[in-house]
């Protein structure tokens, strides 16, 4: 099949999604579950009612933020695997601030609590950025380690440092009333789901992200440094500055994802025993979304349908919820081996790249 390179960029994720669903179906068949029943109950419960739709959108909201966070670091050439820690820091910080300032007028409280959460996420990611910029320390290892540091530190901070007046038990804080992102009309409209104003912020964030990467010199520099750090340095861009800026932005968006969880979804903070899930899920969303704002939006919705629908599938069809995570992992696997998927299609124009690669008179010309 001959297609243009642009069409290829769209076809690859679509095929990856279909293949991922097929993997899930095969596993279900192997254990004698009915995949058709599973998938129909999944879509039914995610999209069949206003509550389901509201929950799906609610699920997608923080994923959009963490996916943008992942993508900005990724554009600069860094694999920010520390999204869970950054999100968790944003979550705890924003809830803590909101609870401690319940008497503040909400027009002041809401922006402040968001800023606090965003800054907390940025600081955690910034540590990895600074270490990478000044010591060349591998950011993959540092962010993994920071996830655990944040995980245990947050627990300690909530249990030992936070005033006990703000908690209802050692494992959970009080509920945020003033400063919550849930609003009456939206909640009502979507069948009393936990949907919140975060979704509007997420859409604004997508536009900002698109504009940043496509239209600004900052985005151009981040992209250049990620693609070729040597040429970027030659062109007078500061690698150090770009590493730190991209990690700060990355962490800020991840922190915002945590804010949404804290003030939108749960309206409190409770003890986490493992890395918060919006971190790795956001990474999956970004990988499937192939770096574009629209791609992230659609991928976040798809994964949310899977995750919300998966709960319904478990109750309605009795199929373990884990199949959802398996399907997501399989989709990412197929995105990862896109080279193989691309072999299914031929470019409309002859492959000029390969021709210059073998003949051309460039460095590799005679190799």
């Amino acid at each position, binding site marked *: 099949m001959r297609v243009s390179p642009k069409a290829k960029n769209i076809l690859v994720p679509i095929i990856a999604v279909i293949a991922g669903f097929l993997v899930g179906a095969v596993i279900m068949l192997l254990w004698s579950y009915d995949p058709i029943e599973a998938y129909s109950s999944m879509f039914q419960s995610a999209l069949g009612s206003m509550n389901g739709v509201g929950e799906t959108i609610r699920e997608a909201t923080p994923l959009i933020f963490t996916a943008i966070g992942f993508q900005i670091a990724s554009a600069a050439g860094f694999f920010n695997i520390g999204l869970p820690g950054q999100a968790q820091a944003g979550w705890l910080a924003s809830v803590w601030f909101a609870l401690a300032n319940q008497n503040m007028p909400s027009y002041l409280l809401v922006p402040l609590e968001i800023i606090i959460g965003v800054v907390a996420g940025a600081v955690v990611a910034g540590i990895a950025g600074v270490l990478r910029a000044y010591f*060349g320390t591998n950011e993959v290892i540092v962010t993994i*380690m920071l996830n655990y540091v944040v995980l245990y530190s947050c627990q300690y901070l909530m249990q030992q440092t936070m005033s006990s007046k703000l908690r209802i038990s050692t494992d959970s804080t009080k509920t945020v009333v003033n400063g919550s992102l849930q609003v009456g009309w939206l909640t009502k409209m979507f069948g009393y789901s936990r949907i919140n104003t975060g979704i509007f912020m997420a859409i604004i964030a997508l536009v900002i992200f698109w504009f940043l990467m496509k239209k600004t010199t900052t985005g151009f520099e981040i992209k250049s440094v990620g693609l070729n750090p040597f040429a970027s340095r030659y062109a007078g861009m500061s690698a150090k500055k770009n590493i730190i800026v991209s990690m700060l932005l990355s962490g800020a968006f991840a922190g915002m994802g945590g804010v949404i969880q804290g003030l939108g979804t749960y309206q409190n903070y409770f003890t986490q025993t493992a890395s918060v899930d919006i971190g790795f899920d956001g990474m999956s969303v970004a990988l499937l979304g192939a770096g574009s704002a629209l791609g992230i939006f659609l991928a976040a919705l798809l994964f949310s349908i899977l995750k919300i629908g998966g709960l319904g599938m478990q109750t309605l069809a009795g199929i373990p919820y884990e*199949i959802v995570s*398996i399907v997501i992992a399989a989709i990412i696997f197929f*995105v990862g081996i896109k080279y193989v998927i691309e072999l299914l299609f031929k470019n409309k124009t002859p492959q000029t790249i390969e021709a210059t690669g073998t003949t051309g008179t460039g460095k590799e010309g005679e190799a």
Partner: protein
Amino acid sequence: MSIVSMLALIVSSSLVYAAPMIFTSIGGAFSEHSGIVNVGLEGIMTMGAFASIVFNLTFAHTFGNATPWLGALVGGIVGLLFSILHAVATVNWRADHIISGTVLNLMASPLAVFLIKAIYNKGQTENITANFGNFSFPVLAQIPILGPIFFENTSAPAWVAIVLAIFMWWLLYKTRFGLRLRASGENPQAADTMGVNVYAMRYAGVLISGFLGGVGGAVFAQAISGNFSVSTIVGQGFMALAAMIFGKWDPIGAMLSSIFFGFAQSLSIIGNQLPGFSHIPSVYLQIAPYVITILVLVLFLGKSVAPAADGQNYIKSK
């Protein structure tokens, strides 16, 4: 508590926690020496832990005391099978090594929990009855002072892992196989022109990491957690990855740094039994291994010494 019994407690619990990391980090070193970055060790350990627990629960009354050892072998085989996914994706299908490794991590625990639910109808297994327990070396335990500290009531898998580290070092640096494996990670094109089958070597590296990572997970499950659930392997694989880097990609180095990390981890567990540690807030002991890892990377390993072609796909021209 006497000094000897205190040291014995520290050494034995360090070794217990080190054992899974030793196996896994040596495996990681082989994968990376062949040129394939493997951040999927965590997922591989999960599969190994899962398989060993299922085996152990099913066959404990058949095999008795040999069960955990056979469980480790089964864990290794399942880990190896699981790692084929990473090998095919990176060696043949040109996938980004970090994405592919991350897929192993994303895939392992839902897959294992799904299977647990399918087999046992619940998300968490019973506790196993045949675990590794403690082991005393027949003669060595009698040595005064050193005996009780190192060889009495200690971790048998850890000592196996230490011996294995020495063997794997020999295999990597002194044999034809090791030379060819390292050449594939240093300069695959050169290795190819010299008739080395780079793809086969890279498969070997990844599969060794799969087997040893599976064994590591199995040892963790059967010596420490005692059952399998979604939270059995949380970070062990990543710590093994850090131990491998800290150990400069050398099997013996990886073993030594695993023991160091085992020591750091065990402090948060046994800290309250040790005089002087009991009043330190537990959070400091909990985060110590991670903070130490970061500090070590910053202070001693700014410039990495990874194999030159580590993480690069090798595309053979036809």
